């Protein structure tokens, strides 16, 4: 019974008519004019129209009881559509899925909350909408209020709540659904840090109680922390289904290719223009390697990173000052290395070349960082090149952005007087 399949999806497809989206608020007049138009234009097959959009193409997988599975993919890859089908909000166009067990789906925190009702009233309303019975809500009421930290505001209309309180209350109701299969769409990323940890803790407890979790997120760290298996969706199909580390690294190498991260940076455009190939110097390739020179994108806290930049110059540059900076995914510039500051001088460069730099042991906290390449003069006045390059990750189980930008050990001393 331990490894029973609780969710089985077979060949799920979902077709949307782009036309349907265009006529969202269509009126009868549109219908009349359009049907007149199409009556006069009887060419082409009405069933195979170019207005069709397949949000999901032949998606199959099985989930076993007790598994925590992440779903990743770029925007529009079909993640939310998949969750909407599995939670029965919309029907698949083709395919089949079966689900054994009580499903709790959290596609939006606080769906069904009514602004005019109090916190207490909304707990009952939202609980009923999520599928709880009144008796069940009665029994869990105190636990829900405790978890939400709403306290004495429980009898205040939720329209007077702060957004944080609102989200906390809404999540608390959903968290007490105690489902056997939980589907979560990007909602754990709400609330303050304490509350987030509480939610993660709750999800872990559900897992310990042998619940199955299906978790959609863009946050690779949350995925890694919770899920051992990841389904990577790309343009509606399963691109990879397997261990999290593998799935995430495939996903990241895919996004690098498609996004062409060697694009210029927006602020750099002002200084150097928008087309790298028109600059006097530009990077043609940026590689992230470990100390030994092996390509890698995930590093442990404290590791050295080797960065190799291939460049081409159109005009000779006298005394270039190479700058390599790390910008965190939330756009905080965390550190930068300058060849001029480090006393690495070059009289001039021309033609093609390769620049290599090895960082000191990096003490940056666990996050995703983008590499930014700048080429300037030694007085930091002129910019010849400004490019955003590859992304890498720092891994640490404890040290995250809540500890600041970087972490280093200190010397401690304590003296006490009795």
């Amino acid at each position, binding site marked *: 019974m331990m490894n029973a399949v609780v969710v089985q999806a077979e060949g799920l497809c979902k077709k949307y008519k782009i036309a349907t989206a265009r006529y969202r608020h269509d009126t009868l007049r549109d219908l009349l004019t359009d049907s007149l138009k199409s009556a006069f234009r009887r060419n082409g097959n009405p069933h195979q129209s170019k207005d069709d959009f397949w949000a999901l193409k032949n998606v199959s997988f099985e989930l076993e009881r007790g598994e925590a599975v992440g779903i990743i993919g770029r925007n529009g890859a079909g993640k939310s559509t998949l969750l909407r089908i599995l939670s*029965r*909000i919309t029907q698949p166009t083709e395919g089949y899925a079966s689900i054994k067990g009580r499903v709790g789906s959290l596609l939006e925190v606080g769906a069904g909350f009514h602004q005019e009702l109090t916190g207490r009233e909304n707990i009952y309303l939202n609980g009923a909408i999520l*599928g709880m019975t009144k008796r069940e809500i009665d029994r869990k009421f105190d636990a829900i209020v405790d978890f939400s930290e709403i306290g004495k505001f429980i009898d205040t209309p939720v329209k007077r709540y702060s957004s944080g309180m609102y989200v906390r209350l809404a999540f608390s109701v959903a968290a007490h659904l105690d489902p056997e299969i939980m589907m979560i769409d990007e909602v754990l990323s709400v609330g303050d840090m304490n509350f987030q940890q509480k939610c993660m803790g709750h999800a872990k407890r559900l897992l310990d109680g042998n619940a199955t979790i299906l978790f959609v997120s863009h946050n690779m760290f949350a995925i890694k922390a919770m899920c051992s298996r990841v389904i990577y969706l790309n343009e509606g199909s399963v691109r990879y289904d397997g261990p999290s580390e593998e799935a995430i690294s495939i996903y990241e190498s895919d996004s690098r290719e498609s996004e062409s991260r060697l694009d210029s940076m927006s602020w750099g455009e002002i200084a150097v223009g928008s087309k790298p190939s028109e600059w006097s110097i530009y990077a043609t390739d940026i590689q992230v390697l470990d100390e030994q020179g092996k390509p890698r994108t995930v590093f442990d806290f404290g590791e050295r990173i080797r960065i190799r930049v291939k460049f081409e110059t159109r005009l000779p540059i006298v005394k270039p000052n190479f700058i390599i900076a790390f910008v965190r995914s939330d756009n905080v510039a965390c550190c930068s290395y300058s060849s001029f500051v480090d006393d690495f001088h070059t009289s001039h460069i021309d033609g093609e070349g390769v620049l290599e730099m090895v960082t000191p042991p990096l003490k940056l906290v666990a996050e995703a960082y983008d590499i930014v390449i700048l080429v300037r003069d030694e007085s930091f006045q002129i910019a010849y090149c400004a490019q955003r390059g590859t992304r890498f990750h720092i891994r640490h189980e404890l040290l995250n952005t809540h500890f600041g930008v970087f972490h280093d050990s200190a010397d401690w001393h304590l003296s006490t007087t009795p």
Partner: protein
Amino acid sequence: MDTEITSTSIFTTPFVEIKPSRGLFQLDLRAVWQYRELLYFLVWRDLKVRYKQAAIGIGWVILQPLVTMLIFTAVFEKFAKVPSDGLPYPIFAYTALLPWTYFAQALSRSGPSVVGDSGLISKIYFPRLIIPLAAVITPAVDFAFSSVILLAMMVWFGMVPTWGVLALPLFLLLVPTTALAVALWLAPLHVRYRDVGHALPFLIQIWMYASPVAYPVSLVPERWRLLYSLNPMAGVIEGFRWALLGKASPDFMLMSVSAAFVLLLLLGGIVFFKHMEKTFADVI
């Protein structure tokens, strides 16, 4: 966390199959029954929300038909000299206004109800039929409150109900059924065509003039009477006056015809609604 939870959950059959539904008649009405508590909470929500921050709260429920009755009495009895089949005009009008107000409320709430709850429909699964159903049930509470006024008026005017009062539940049942039957067609259409939202108040207004609310059926020309009586609300209002005020009974033959028509409309409406609900979340 404990196993008791699953046993009290409303999912008595925790096995769900998800596939495109092909047939027209997979109605799955059992799911509506399983979610009856949600139906209760949606009605409760609508009632709560309506009278929050309203100073006289539930007083509005009584005030609306009462004031309408006074206006009708002034306009139709005093100015237009509309006959009332020998009954005091105020109670003649109020007996009709009671079921009519309920019907108008039920229809104007349930018609746009699916679009009104679009936030729920695109985010959470539950049987969608619950939404128009709740909208039809909510104004029944208003009906109960305003019937107290009718009782008071009957005492005041010394009216004694006839044996027809035993048939009253049948008339009472026909009103929400008619409202629901129409709403099951209008609500899905409203999801696709917002025109329905504009047309609905107009439709209700026309329907009122086609029902004997302010005037007696005896004013309707004889040759139109047959067609007129097919309006289920005409039968209901005549039935109310017959049961409570001792007026001549409505034509039961015609009433059964229109009741049968309503039932047909209801069944078709359920099929239509279930067919359309598949795309609610995609289109809304």
